[in-house]
């Protein structure tokens, strides 16, 4: 399983765009990149998934360069309710089994 590295914490202000980068240098060919959001005392919630280039949904965008050794989660115009911990997980597509969460990035959005 690919090991991931993310910043431990980030600060932002309401209305700003936030970019959280995850490094996964030894990602395997079949691994997808998945991002989760976790609020205190709740389980993580799936945000977005991608393989390469750019993926966008109603919540966020995910940018993955051609070498796929990193990925960037982009949150447009954050609000106070986006304050949470964000995790990236490389995951081999269509394979069951264990999923390992790293330490994540604690995003704090200030007014």
């Amino acid at each position, binding site marked *: 399983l690919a090991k991931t590295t993310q910043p431990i914490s980030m600060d932002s202000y309401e209305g700003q765009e936030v970019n959280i980068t995850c490094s996964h240098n030894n990602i395997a060919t079949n691994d997808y990149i998945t991002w989760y959001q976790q609020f205190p*005392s*709740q389980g993580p919630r799936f945000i977005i998934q991608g393989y390469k280039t750019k993926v966008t949904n109603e919540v966020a965008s995910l940018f993955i360069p051609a070498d796929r050794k990193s990925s960037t989660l982009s949150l447009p115009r954050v609000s106070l309710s986006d304050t949470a911990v964000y995790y990236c997980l490389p995951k081999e*597509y269509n394979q069951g*089994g264990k999923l390992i969460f790293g330490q994540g990035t604690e995003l704090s959005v200030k007014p």
Partner: protein
Amino acid sequence: SQTIHQWPATLVQPVGSPLSLECTVEGTSNPNLYWYRQAAGRGLQLLFYSVGIGQISSEVPQNLSASRPQDRQFILSSKKLLLSDSGFYLCAWSVQMYTGELFFGEGSRLTVL
């Protein structure tokens, strides 16, 4: 639609007492099931995962055990709790042919005194 429930939501137990946390999934068949623990802040530790009835894989050697007596039921147990077992326990499921999304339960907060 699929739902996942786990209970109890909160538990305070003395050291050396037994533990049983239950998790059930509804609205799907043959899910992958997982138990995670989150201690004192963030960082989820995978404890057990199961790809089918009676098939349990353990990630961390410790005094906890897991069982899957039915397709959509996952139980976390301990015969004797330790102080270090305190934490936030999360059950999760995914489709058998995993598509990238884990669905988590509401969590069970265990305090061992």
